[in-house]
């Protein structure tokens, strides 16, 4: 088995009496695009800052390629960070900002200039070397911050909510570019984000965090298909969740009987696109019956909200069902719902 690049073991951090990190154990592989995903206050930023050396964990260890990272001061770590605010030095030109790291490492002037020019080319900022940060657009500043963070060729690049300050159009473009860049430069990226779409679309693996605990580490697909627990299921994508008791064939719920599904636990998760819907009497073996309250066309797919008979979802919201095409159900239509056992997972 390949040794992971970063091994985090039993990491704890406290702010006063609040546990920011609670016994975090995590491996990050070499050359991986790794995302820390969770709502604000879940500890993901504290974890990132611990890796950078701006936060001193109270217990646990972090090893990077066999070296004890916590024993090194921030300025000695082979780790660079792209700050959420970008933290560009306002009194320096783009060139001097990007050249700051190599210059500190004692790289000769001519070599610094060469590397800066090269990395500015990589991020598509050639020609702006003599501008100051105040003369750049948000997207350009973001690229400068990125260039500054990768010019030193760190073992590990940390990105703190790198896209949150950009508007939507630029953001999706940068997502693609970040992914391409990570592939091109071959640096391990650890990105912190609260935007699940961002994490799902960019990351090779994602650690879902809440309350200072890692809930699950998995590929985007596995997170979506087999969430480890109800928190992950609720956080990743849209889901319909029912509470009951697991049985071999599914989840036993009062009044209804058995909802098809697999797994152990007391919550059944079924994704909107896995549910089939038809007018009453239209399905061979319906699971639930209900009434349509709303049907919304959102370009290519239609999301239908159904209030089920004799049962409620965990969130007490209507069941959502996604189908390709245009709306086919009017308000108050009586419908039937069904899903195969393999596409619904029962979790703790």
């Amino acid at each position, binding site marked *: 088995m390949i040794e992971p690049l970063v091994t985090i073991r039993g990491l704890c951090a406290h702010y006063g009496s609040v546990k920011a990190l609670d016994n975090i154990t995590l491996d990050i592989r070499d050359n991986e695009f790794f995302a820390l995903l969770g709502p604000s206050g879940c500890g993901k930023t504290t974890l990132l800052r611990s890796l*950078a*050396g*701006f936060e001193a964990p109270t217990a646990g260890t972090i090893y990077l390629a066999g070296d004890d990272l916590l024993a090194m*001061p*921030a*300025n*000695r770590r082979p*780790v*660079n*960070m792209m*700050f959420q*605010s970008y*933290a*560009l*030095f*306002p*009194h320096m030109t783009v060139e001097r900002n990007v050249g*700051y*790291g190599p210059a*500190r*490492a004692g790289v000769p002037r001519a070599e610094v200039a060469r590397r800066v020019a090269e990395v500015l080319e990589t991020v598509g900022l050639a020609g702006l070397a003599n501008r*100051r*940060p*105040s003369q750049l657009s948000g997207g350009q500043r973001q690229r400068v911050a990125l260039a*500054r963070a990768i010019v*030193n060729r760190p073992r590990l690049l940390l990105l703190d909510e790198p896209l949150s300050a950009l508007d939507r159009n630029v953001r999706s473009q940068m997502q693609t570019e970040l992914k391409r860049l990570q592939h091109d430069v071959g640096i391990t990226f650890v990105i912190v984000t609260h935007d699940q779409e961002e994490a799902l679309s960019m990351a090779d693996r994602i650690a879902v965090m809440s309350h200072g605990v890692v809930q699950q580490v998995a590929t985007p697909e596995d997170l979506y298909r087999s969430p480890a627990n109800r928190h992950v299921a609720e956080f990743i994508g849209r889901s319909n969740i029912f509470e009951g008791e697991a049985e071999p064939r599914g989840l036993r719920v009062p009044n209804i009987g058995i909802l098809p599904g697999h797994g152990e636990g007391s919550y059944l998760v079924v994704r909107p696109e896995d549910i089939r819907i038809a007018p009453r009497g239209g399905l061979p073996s319906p699971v639930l019956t209900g009434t349509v309250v709303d049907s919304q066309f959102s370009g290519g797919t239609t999301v239908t909200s159904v209030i089920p008979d004799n049962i409620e979802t965990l969130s007490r919201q209507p069941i959502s069902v996604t189908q390709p095409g245009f709306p086919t159900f009017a308000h108050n239509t009586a419908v039937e719902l069904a899903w195969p056992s393999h596409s619904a997972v029962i979790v703790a």
Partner: protein
Amino acid sequence: MFLGPGLVFITLFVAVPVLLVVSYTVFLRGRFGGVDYIFTLDNFLRAWEPTYRKVLVESVGIAAAATAIALAIGYPAAYAIAQAPGRWRNVLLVAVVIPFWTNFLIRIYAWVILLSNQGVVNDVLVGSGILNERLTLLYTKGAVVAGLVYVYLPLMIMPIYASVARLDVELREASANLGANKVTTFLRVTLPLSLPGVIAGSIFVFVPSLGNFVVPELLGGGKTVMVGNLVRDQFLKARDWPFGATLALIMIVLLFGLFALQSIVSRRFATEVS
């Protein structure tokens, strides 16, 4: 066109008096005081005579020394206050301005008591055996500089504090992250970005130090004459308004030069606000 009350006020109470003073510089002194409106450049030539040139140069020297010392004390103080935990910051800032609550003259007289031959400083130095003889501290240039530093130190601390406190912590973190140690981070990031505060503080100390005539009189014992004393004496004692005005104009020009420098530096190091 309506110019607004502010402009009227400025015109009446700043522009007109300054222009009046400026106009006096090219006229002769009246025989019994006042001004004879006969054009002359003698006042400027006189200001360049060794006696007055020496006072001008010495005044600039004393004000510069006071500014440098205030900076040396004020920067670390301002930096420390800016780094202090939130609730301590306001307490420390209040401590900086508390001396302003006492009358200026009283505070200067306190320095007379401190520095005199039988004063506290000498008592301590001799009493503790560090020195055998009492030092002449009062009525020296050093006493004048000390007094100016003491009086204007808060004016140095405040603008520096403001510019250091405004600095994003992440800038220092970014510097460390890019491999800079604490000294390098200070020299390359913190100091340049707090330069507008340093310049502002230095001007706030230098300008009133240069024009001050109370401190040189009380702590310098009249032996150390500064340009402020000279200007006052020309107007009030010698009753030579044109020459007093000339000396005042020279100061004003000097200070305008400083402000120009400040605005250049501030613009160059302006932290972006986006």
